[in-house]
């Protein structure tokens, strides 16, 4: 009986140890795979550096992994002006926020050359510092992207409203999002200066059709963050906002880290903290799996004014294999002008290049009427993003 009891104690000990190891492994792997991310979105300070300084300390207390900043750091680029911004973004007390901030230029920063900008911002170093991966650039420190956890971030140098986005930036964005999708990521968060859908004082330059086509093509796009307009606001972007939109996404304008507050226009927003509070502000975004939660903060108040949670269920992209070269096949999708099995930005460019041509047999003459015209354009746009 005594022997039996001793074996029983040993067994219990072993069982306890085994269960402890299982629990340890389970929780460790959960932590690794379900990395939660908090980042801050803000922008537009100009001469309002005391506001930026106060917002920095408020945001720092929320412990973000990093921040994205949508342009107009200064009123007009000069060394004293950018030095004042650096002090302010560090909260006036070197709180370290500058070291985790990814800015892009706005129209008021246009006096900074690429070299001037790179003297102050080395985005690749910031990416390494915050633990981001897959850093990539189109232009050094100006237009760039990186991954963090299951999310992809793209900052584009657009000095003013969204119509200033170039053909190269749009084509690069398309390639960059395709690559992010092939890595199996869940979200893409895009940021630059001028909103895709203006909702306040810069109303309403139309976004380039090619940009909307690229956004439609990529289900990984979850939300965009812009400034230019000095409000803190949100709009759900669908075809009632922009008729050409087929892939819906969320747009946040976080352009009041000192430059505002201005006023959102009636009928053009779903939520406008600035109209409610008449205060400066910023947002935090918490990403957890397929969901992300956005908290709107006004300056000086520690609890959020508004909290919104979005889920991407049903929109999560499937991991696509690396494309392998395939033989040229006859066009199956109307609009696949380069016959590579999909209708993409390259087909769009081919059509624009040939628009107005009246020669029979032109590659962009989809309906075969010997004219590259609006009917061909409409056919291509209808099929944009389709693959054969």
């Amino acid at each position: 009986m005594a022997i039996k009891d001793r074996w029983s104690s040993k067994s219990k000990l072993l069982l306890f140890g085994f269960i402890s190891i299982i629990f340890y492994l389970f929780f460790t792997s959960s932590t690794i795979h379900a990395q939660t991310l908090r980042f801050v979105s803000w922008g537009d300070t100009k001469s309002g550096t005391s506001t930026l300084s106060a917002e920095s300390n408020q945001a720092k207390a929320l412990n973000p992994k990093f921040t994205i900043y949508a342009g107009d750091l200064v009123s007009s680029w000069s060394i004293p002006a950018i030095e004042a911004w650096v002090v302010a973004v560090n909260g006036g007390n070197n709180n370290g926020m500058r070291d985790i901030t990814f800015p892009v230029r706005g129209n008021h920063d246009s006096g900074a050359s690429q070299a001037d900008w790179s003297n102050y911002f080395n985005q690749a170093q910031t990416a390494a510092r915050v633990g981001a991966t897959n850093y990539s650039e189109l232009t050094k420190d100006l237009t760039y992207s990186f991954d963090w956890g299951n999310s992809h971030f793209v900052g584009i140098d657009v000095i003013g409203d969204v119509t200033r986005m170039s053909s190269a930036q749009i084509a690069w964005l398309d390639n960059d999002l395709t690559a992010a999708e092939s890595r199996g990521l869940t979200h893409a968060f895009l940021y630059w200066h001028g909103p895709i859908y203006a909702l306040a004082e810069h109303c309403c330059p139309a976004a380039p059709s090619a940009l909307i086509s690229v956004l439609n093509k990529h289900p990984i796009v979850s939300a965009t963050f812009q400034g230019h307009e000095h409000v803190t606001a949100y709009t759900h972007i669908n075809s009632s906002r922009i008729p050409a939109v087929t892939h819906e996404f969320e747009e946040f304008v976080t352009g009041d880290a000192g430059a505002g507050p201005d006023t959102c226009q009636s009928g053009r927003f779903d939520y406008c903290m600035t109209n409610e509070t008449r205060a400066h502000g910023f947002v935090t975004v918490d990403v957890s799996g397929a969901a992300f939660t956005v908290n709107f903060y006004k300056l000086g108040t520690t609890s959020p004014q508004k909290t919104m949670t979005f889920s991407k269920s049903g929109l999560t992209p499937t991991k696509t294999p690396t494309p392998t070269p395939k033989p040229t096949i006859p066009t199956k999708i109307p609009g696949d002008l380069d016959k590579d099995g999909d209708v993409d930005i390259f087909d769009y460019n081919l059509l624009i290049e040939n628009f107005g041509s009246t020669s029979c047999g032109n590659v962009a003459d989809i309906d075969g009427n010997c004219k590259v015209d609006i009917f061909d354009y409409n056919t291509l746009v209808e099929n944009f993003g389709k693959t054969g």
Partner: protein
Amino acid sequence: MDKRDSNLLLVLLSSAVLLISTFIFTSAVQKEPKIRFGKASENVVTKELVSGFPLIPEYPASYLENSYKQEDGTSVRYVGNWLTSDSVPQVEMWYKEELVDSGWVIDNLPADENDEQIQYLVAKKAELTLQLSIIRGKAQNLTQIIAEFPPQINEDES
């Protein structure tokens, strides 16, 4: 004429009516298009530069596909499209030198000047800003050179 012949005749007649209707409809639509490409004030000019297009060096081994001018209120935007069979880095290197020789100041250079797919540079001269996009198309092994002049920035804009 038996029943089979009359059915065949009916089918032939219906097809003829359908074809003629389609032809009339297509002609009418082509004469009076209900939808225009782009904005109302946008004009596409093929094989030549649209009037007022700013003077820039043109890549020698390229041909102009089209150009256009967009007017939106008081702002004007010019776009020109050229094609060449030369590589993206070749084109970028040429423009980098020629633009400087023509008095332009290079503002942004590509992050990787050896990139074979997409390169982007920005140059300024007086009040003009040139956005030069150089993109390798997947079709026909051609490189597209797109020169864009966005509307001028008003520094006082809020």
